[in-house]
């Protein structure tokens, strides 16, 4: 579970986030959308403890992020997978080594590493590319490897920042299909994206941001329900579900 309460962040006095509040339940799939400069990346960085918020409260997996010491941040990150727009794969290492690094970092015994790398690559359909280096793969393939690396430690939360920003539409679809599968197995997924077309098709909760503020939460209905025939129903104070309706 992720909960933010009136979170603000300033860069040299300029607000990047302004009193952002929302809650994401375990196993939810949430899109964070909005134009460039809306604060999507800052929000994900704060959730990942790469940036510190200046005001507000953040609870991630039951941990108060404000009370985390720098030596505890790595342990929180081990429960959160992160997928970057630019993949962040090490170009001189093989696909195997790139993924194995994530396992080594958390102290996985050597004997388990090979099996787990193979398993996760199989999950993303890339097990044949084990011994290649990233530059020999397409953008879509590299992003699948990045997703595999984010998943190899079986995190409870997956954060993705513009994961399809550098991909062609077909590769983008593959990556979102992966996110959907991961989410179906219980992982909470938060994706910051511009890709409104995919967002619309996937029929999940949408948090819309502009100028550092949440302007709409679960607003699929308000913006697109008439055209797509979807309806968002508030099932309580924090849980929203989106249902398909026939136009």
């Amino acid at each position: 579970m992720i909960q933010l309460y009136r979170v603000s962040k300033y860069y040299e006095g300029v607000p990047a986030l302004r009193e952002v509040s929302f809650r994401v339940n375990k196993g939810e799939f949430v899109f964070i959308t909005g134009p460039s400069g809306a604060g999507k990346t800052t929000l994900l960085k704060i959730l990942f403890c790469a940036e510190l918020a200046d005001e507000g409260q953040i609870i991630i997996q039951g941990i108060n992020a404000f009370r985390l010491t720098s030596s505890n941040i790595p342990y929180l990150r081990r429960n959160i997978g992160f997928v970057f727009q630019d993949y962040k794969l090490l170009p001189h290492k093989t696909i195997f080594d790139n993924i194995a690094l994530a396992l080594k970092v958390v102290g996985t015994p050597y004997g388990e590493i090979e099996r787990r790398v193979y398993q996760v690559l199989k999950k993303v359909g890339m097990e044949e590319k084990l011994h290649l280096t990233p530059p020999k793969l397409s953008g879509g393939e590299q992003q699948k490897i990045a997703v595999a690396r984010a998943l190899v430690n079986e995190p409870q939360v997956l954060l993705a920042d513009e994961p399809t920003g550098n991909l062609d539409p077909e590769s983008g679809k593959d990556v979102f299909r992966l996110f959907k599968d991961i989410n179906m197995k219980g992982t909470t997924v938060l994706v910051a994206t511009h890709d409104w077309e995919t967002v619309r098709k996937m029929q999940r909760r949408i948090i819309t941001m502009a100028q550092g503020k949440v302007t709409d939460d679960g607003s699929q209905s308000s913006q697109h329900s008439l055209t797509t025939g979807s309806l968002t129903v508030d099932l309580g104070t924090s849980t929203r579900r989106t249902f398909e309706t026939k136009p």
Partner: protein
Amino acid sequence: MKGYGLFYFIAEAFRGLRANSIVNLLAIGTISMAMLIVGFFLLIFSNVQNAVNSLGDQIEMSVYLKDGLTSYEKNYIFSHLKAEIGVRKVTYLSKVEAIALFKKELKGQEALIQGLGENPLPDSFEISIDHRYADAQRLEAMARKIVGYPGIEDVSYGKQGAEVLTGLYKLLMYGGTALALLLGVSIVFIISNSVRLALYSRGQEIELMQWIGATRRFIQGPFLIEGMMLAMLGSALAIGVLAALFYLLPQEVVLFLSRPNGLDFLPPSVITYIIMGGGVLGLIGGLISVNRFLD
């Protein structure tokens, strides 16, 4: 077992050493030059120290007795002198023995003492001083104490010689320490630069490791080992070069330098200290760079 220990860090450090082999070879070369100076100085220091020690052993103090002391009184003084700290040996020299010795020393010029008539030399005790206690201040204090004993006429010792020895020893000690400190700081600087280059060359990997949950210890471990290895390799190389120079010296030079105490190479314990000390300096250099980089 969870977590990767020393073997992982060592393996990663070797990988790092191989990856930046040219930079690291230059670092090892530079460190070995600095360590060569340290080793060379230690070699001189240990040999000069041996020489100073043997000269120190030659320092003697003469305690002149008043005339007419009984043998009981002389024995009393003897036992007190023997009990003094730093006294290696006490020898009694009667006035008869003293004049005989004096005559022997003046061989060929006996005429100088012909007109003296009665033997003017007093009975005395000759004290040999342990070289560890042969510093000027200590000897002066000892002389002042002994001259206060009843039955003592006067005390004399090679004051100037002791002062020269003490000065030489202090010069070596302080000069050596200052030089070692200066070179130690240079080694830390060299290592921290080499490790910093390694850190920058693997910056992308380090950033990624931080993103995927690596602890500080996991990231810094290999770099610290790498710093230690660089410094230890540099130190070992310096010892090797020094040994080669020492053993390949022309025989005439060795004979010339060997007088009067013989010339020794560094003992194994000092070699171990140099290499281990290099390792500690490497660790400090590595820590400085890694902490700066990760903060």
